[in-house]
């Protein structure tokens, strides 16, 4: 039953996607749009295959940067969110500024980052951190702050220390938010790394993208864009899998929902 539903659920978007691709192919075939302005899907697939090994090499670099940046973001977000939850003064002082930092056009900072941090991975990782840190922190903080007051009263009534309240109530309560924040962040992370690479570097999808663009290979450029999308989706899927592992009680809740 459930499996069947899964299949039909995927049928609609797949059909729509194929339909869109078909239209795209037809538009380019018809010559309505010149090829150099819009390569056809088949051109793009061909470019993807022919430059596959290059793409993979560059993807490895971008992924390394994305993961490093994500890792740092997560650790930072945990520390800051914990401190902000623990110390009200800190929350009051830092939270409004955090919100403000979100309006900083990170991409605009990229040239400065290169100037400050040099040409290696550091500025790229930094840009990823700047992009991902905020949603992670807000998600975690939301989880901590939304913990049930009554549950915490209960914990206090049974004599729990502060860290025990974090251990048993606040951290588990923050997990769902953490994972949805993470899902957003993984796709930001890759895109962040790519944008940072535009600013210079020897390898990475952003560098490759600049190169193929400068040699007017739009088919390869589209191939890179598609690779980025695929990588983002794969990573989001991975987060989904980890999420299910980390929160086994969610199965129970979902089953309950299906039943009702």
């Amino acid at each position, binding site marked *: 039953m459930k499996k069947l539903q899964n299949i039909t659920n995927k049928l609609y978007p797949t059909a729509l996607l194929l339909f869109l691709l078909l239209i795209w192919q037809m538009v380019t075939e018809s010559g309505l749009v010149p090829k150099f302005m819009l390569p056809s899907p088949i051109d793009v697939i061909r470019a993807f295959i022919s430059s596959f090994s290059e793409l993979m090499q560059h993807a490895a670099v971008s992924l390394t940067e994305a993961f490093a940046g994500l890792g740092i973001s997560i650790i930072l977000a945990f520390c800051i969110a914990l401190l902000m939850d623990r110390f009200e003064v800190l929350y009051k002082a830092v939270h409004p500024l955090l919100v403000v930092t979100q309006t900083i056009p990170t991409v605009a900072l990229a040239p400065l980052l290169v100037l400050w941090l040099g040409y290696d991975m550091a500025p790229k990782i930094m840009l990823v951190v700047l992009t991902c840190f905020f949603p992670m922190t807000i998600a975690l903080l939301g989880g901590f702050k939304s913990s049930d007051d*009554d549950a915490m009263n209960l914990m206090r009534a049974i004599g729990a220390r502060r860290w025990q309240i974090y251990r048993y109530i606040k951290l588990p*309560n923050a997990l769902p938010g953490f994972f949805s924040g993470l899902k957003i962040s993984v796709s930001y992370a890759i895109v962040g790394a790519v944008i940072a690479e535009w600013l210079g570097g020897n390898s990475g999808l952003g560098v490759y993208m600049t190169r193929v663009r400068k040699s007017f290979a739009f088919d390869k450029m589209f191939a890179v864009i598609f690779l980025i999308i695929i990588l983002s989706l794969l990573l989001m899927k991975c987060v989904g899998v980890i999420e299910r592992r980390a*929160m086994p009680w969610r199965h129970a809740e979902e089953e309950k929902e299906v039943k009702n």
Partner: protein
Amino acid sequence: MKLIKLEAQNISKRFAGELVIKDINIRLGENELVSLLGVSGIGKSTLFNVIAGVLAPDTGQVFLNGEDITGQAGKVSYMQQKDLMQPHMTVLDNISLPLFIRGVNKRQARAQALSHFREFGLEGTQKKYPIQLSGGMRQRAALLRTYLFSQDVALFDEPFSALDAITKTAMHRWYLALMERINMSALFITHDIDEAILLSDRVYVMTGPPGVIAHEIVIDTPRPRGDEFLVSDAFIGYKREIIKRLSA
């Protein structure tokens, strides 16, 4: 009067300058079940929070076995209106939580909790998550958690009010039977007059605002109290009295 386990003297508490409860004096004897009855917002939960040591009173003191425990958490068991089962822990871990907190080794804590599962009608649920239990089972699990924290004195804040009438009746029966077997002194908050009469040795009626103890009624019908008690003359007498006192 039996040995006094718990006593609250002259408790007052203000929130944002407003007096919520005023000069509350209550006692709880050994193995007694005493109910606190009053309308919503009168300050019942506030009083419990003070007794449980989660909230500091503005005036007054709380004594447990004659010792001043004012403002000290972790001395008496406390069960709130919501069952407060943590969705991310199995039923067994939820129930063992007070033991974990107290620093008992996890395996030992679980074993100790498990040994009471039959008595509390929870066999077979240990590996489940709270969401997989019925309302009645969750309340029994919360009750067991409360019991495990301290067999001595427990505070129950509307433990059954989230249940539907039929389940609630079943829980009353089960609870009365349990009381025959275990020793526990309990202070009970409820909105439900029938429930207060059925379960209690004494009933404090709170009126206000500010919340004060307006009256104390002793329910001296002997236990066990069966279903027929609910429709007996004595029951009706108590109910009439309480309704009068509440609307005074």
